[in-house]
Each structure stands twice: as structure tokens, then as C-alpha cells.
């Protein structure tokens, strides 16, 4: 039995439709509202207004300076260069300590991946030291390294090593067996195998580790600087906050705190988000 009458085959190529676009008027504020940064900005402005209003109502700049006073202190600090100096000192120590921490973490991960005993060493050390807040080591660090950069680098490195070595190892462990076989199939061995297969494949995990380490290190540094921070007259941002609190320059204390926040955000958005967009997002691999 033929069924020809009920079959229909449409020739779509003959009627290729133009893209159908439906338009409707959108008001300008509606369009702005759809932009994420616009909404964020709105929230920030609202918070600033609230802050200003509450501070004026409280009228006690020793307890709670207003938004405008804080901004003035911030601008003043930047203009005189004191705040800039403090920020640069902090960042210098931070980058140094972070780099030392990363280096040690890489070495530790290499030991862990070279043998079973090495793996046990890394696991045990990490289990012991990872829960220990870096700042708790500061008294010991001061005993060993004195009041100076050495102690700060020590606690910074501690705040980075354990979590980053864990990220390296879990990243490398997670590289799929198929991808490993592909790498060896095309003749990669040793360093080029690590460089061309393992590191890119483990990159999501490595990036997460770098990010986490940076966040730990930044918090640790500010906290540590609050405790002593000054060596030969050149303190960091934490010291700036502490110093101004002692001199009852509370607006400057707030200015210092704002700087801590802003630097944290800048690194997150300008460095890590950018790397993320250029790598794991583009590759479509989840973190």
C-alpha cells in the first residue's frame, strides 16, 4: 500500500526566510536596568547615600565618619603620597610572599607526585598546617625572623602553600586518562608532556588555587601588618590603619579600609576574571 498522499515534503530552500526580528520600544531606564554594572552602581550609590545620611544623623566623626569625610581623607592620603606609599609597600611584600609560597607549593606538589612516601608527607603536612590560620604563626615568626619583612613573608607563604599544593595535586590527578594517552601517543614525554598536556588540562584547578591563595595572602597580610607592620618607618596598609586609629584620624582609618577593599576587587576583576575569560571560559571547561 502506498501512502503518498499523506506524506508531505517541504522544500525549505525555496522559502528561506529572512531573520525575523520583532521590535518594540524600550524605555532608556529599562535598558540601563538590564545592564549589570548599572544595577551594581545603583546599589553602591544607595549604600553611600545611606552611609552619609546615617553618619550625619549620628554626628560623631570619631565613631563613624561620613562618606564624604572618608573620601576626603582618601584623596588627601593619595595626594600627600602617604597612602600610595603604604599601598606600594603592602603590595611589594604581598607579591614577594605570594611568589615564595607558590614556589614552595610547586616543590611540595612535585615531591608528592614523585613517590608514595612523598604523597604521604604532603598529605600529613597539609592536614596539619592547612587548618592553622597564618596569623597564629606570627608570634613564632617574629621570634625567628624579627620585626620585618621576613616575618611577613613567612606568614604569607604559609597562607599560600597548603591550599595551592592541594590544587596542583588535585588538578594533575584529575587529568583524564584519555588525554594522557593522547599526549603520549604523539610522543610527548617529560617536561614537554607536563607543559603541553598536564598543566593546561589542570589549569582550571590551578587558577582556582592561585585565586584562593591570593585571597588568603591579602587578608593575612593586612592582619599581620595590624599587629606590627612597621619596620624602619615604612609600614604597609595595615599599619596605616592602625596608626591612624591611634591618632584618632578615624576618617583615614576608613580610607585605609576602603583601599583594602578596592585593591581586593581590582585584583579579582582585572587580573583573575581576565585570565578566566581568556582561558577556562573560552575553552568551556568548568572550574
Amino acid at each position, binding site marked *: 500500500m502506498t501512502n503518498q498522499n499523506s506524506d508531505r515534503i517541504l522544500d525549505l530552500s525555496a522559502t528561506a526566510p529572512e531573520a525575523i526580528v520583532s521590535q518594540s520600544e524600550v524605555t532608556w531606564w529599562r535598558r540601563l536596568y538590564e545592564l549589570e554594572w548599572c544595577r551594581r552602581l545603583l546599589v553602591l550609590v544607595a549604600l553611600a547615600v545611606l552611609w552619609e545620611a546615617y553618619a550625619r544623623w549620628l554626628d560623631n566623626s570619631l565613631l563613624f565618619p561620613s562618606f564624604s569625610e572618608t573620601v576626603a581623607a582618601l584623596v588627601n592620603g593619595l595626594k600627600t603620597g602617604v597612602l600610595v606609599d603604604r599601598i606600594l609597600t603592602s603590595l611589594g611584600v604581598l607579591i614577594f610572599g605570594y611568589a615564595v609560597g607558590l614556589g614552595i607549593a610547586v616543590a611540595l606538589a612535585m615531591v608528592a607526585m614523585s613517590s608514595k612516601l612523598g604523597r604521604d608527607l604532603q598529605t600529613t603536612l597539609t592536614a596539619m598546617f592547612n587548618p592553622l590560620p597564618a596569623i597564629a604563626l606570627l608570634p613564632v615568626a617574629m621570634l625567628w625572623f624579627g620585626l620585618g619583612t621576613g616575618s611577613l613573608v613567612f606568614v604569607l607563604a604559609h597562607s599560600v602553600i597548603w591550599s595551592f599544593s592541594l590544587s596542583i595535586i588535585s588538578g594533575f590527578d584529575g587529568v*583524564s586518562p*584519555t*588525554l594522557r*594517552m*593522547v*599526549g*603520549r*601517543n*604523539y*610522543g*610527548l614525554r617529560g617536561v*614537554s608532556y607536563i607543559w*603541553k*598536556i598536564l598543566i*593546561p*588540562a589542570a*589549569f582550571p584547578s590551578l587558577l582556582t588555587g592561585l585565586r584562593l591563595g591570593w585571597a588568603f595572602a591579602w587578608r593575612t597580610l593586612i592582619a599581620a601588618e595590624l599587629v606590627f607592620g612597621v619596620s624602619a618607618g615604612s609600614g604597609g596598609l595595615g599599619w596605616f590603619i592602625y596608626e591612624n586609629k591611634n591618632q584618632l584620624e578615624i576618617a583615614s582609618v576608613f580610607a585605609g579600609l576602603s583601599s583594602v577593599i578596592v585593591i581586593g576587587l581590582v585584583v579579582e576583576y582585572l587580573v583573575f576574571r581576565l585570565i578566566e575569560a581568556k*582561558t577556562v571560559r*573560552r*575553552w*568551556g*571547561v568548568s572550574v
Partner: protein
Amino acid sequence: MELPLLQLNDVSLDYEDTSGNKRRRTTVVQGVSFGVSAAERCMLLGASGSGKSTLLKAIGGYIKPSHGSITLSGQPVLKPGPDRVMMFQEFDQLLPWRTVVGNVVFALEASGKAKGKDANDRARTAVAKVKLERVADQYPHQLSGGMKQRVALARALAMEPKILLMDEPFAALDALTRTQMQHELLELWDNHRFTLIFVTHSIKEALTVGSRVLVLSPHPGRLQADISCAPSKEELIHGLLFGNAATEAKAHD
């Protein structure tokens, strides 16, 4: 008589049981011997667990035989190498951090086959062969499953290996794409005459793609049958009439 390209002599393959406190070895493949000549399309067929993948990995050089020998052009196979390119079922065989072309370039450069612009040109040619020019600069995660397998195929073919080792390459695809890929593979074979060892679960696939079917029995895997699939009468006459020109004509259909 011409020596076969690949020769397996009484090959047995074990896995070590690391669970428990006693070391035990399980034999997965036992006493397998066969030879594969150039341009053959050799299908490995067998039940799940009969050691097809294990055997293919041994030919790839990833597993050492506990007994017997594997030789390629007379040389013993000791380690993985670019003269035997593997293609897997898993989509993650592509490097997610490289584009379609980048994946092929990677293979050419890592193996030292080509460099720089030369590698790039060859990669683009290979990508065109599997009809993926349109997505040549996209990343694997932007492709469908079938397209990903085509990239893997392009990467393997660009290497011009002595043997192409495929482990259920189309098993994760839907029936329609699968059939299409089988035909494209045959078309490519028509033009390039590579040597193929192809693992499959499907009798139909084995008969469609293969010029010869090896059947493995399970537990442990042993060679149960070696069946050559005669080319269809149409193919035969086509070949007689037009020789290799036939393939050209077919490609232009």
C-alpha cells in the same frame, strides 16, 4: 609472500590486581596471533570485557604483552608513538584549550611531523577533509559530538600513521550520525588507503566498515574467528572498470 604490516605472535595480556594484599594477575587476552596487511580495514568484534580495548592499547604500545610479541614493519612495539595513532570513543580526547585546527597542529608539532606555517596548512587541509572548515577556529566545547569525532579523525589522519587504531569511535553518537560517520570513514579510506584496526560492538558496523572481521571470545579474550568480508560485487566491478579513478568519481558524486 608479502610480510604483514602488523604482526601479533601468541600475545597474552595481563592486568595486575592491586586490590587485596595478594598480588594477582588476571589474564585478559590469551594467545592471540594475527597479521594485518597494509590498507586492510580490520575490525575487532567481541562481547563487552573480551579485551578488545586492552588489545588495541597493547598495539598502541601502552601495555606490554606478558607473553608473545607485537611487531610493526618488523620492529617490536615497545612504547606509544605517532606511527600508530589512537582514536577513542571519549569526546575528551580533544584538547579543550586548542581550537579545531589547533588540535591538529598540536599533534603535528608534538610529534615533530611539521612546524609553524607548514603544520598550520596541513592541519587546515585535514580539517577540510572531514568537512569542518566552517568551525576550524572554534573550540571543541562549541561542537556537537559528531563534529568532535571528526576533529579526532582529522587529527589522526593528518599524522599519516602506519596504522589507525580506533576504539569504538562512533559508539557515543546517535544512529544517524553514526551511519554518516561510517560512510565518511569509508570515503576517506577510498582516497587515502590507510590501515585500520577498528574496535566495535556492532556486527552491522563491523560488516559495513570492515574488510575483515576478527572475533574475540571473552574471559580470557581469544581469537575465535577471522572472517574476510568479500567486497560487494558492485565494488568489485567498479574497481575493475575504473581502478582507483572510481574513487575520484565517487568523491565528486
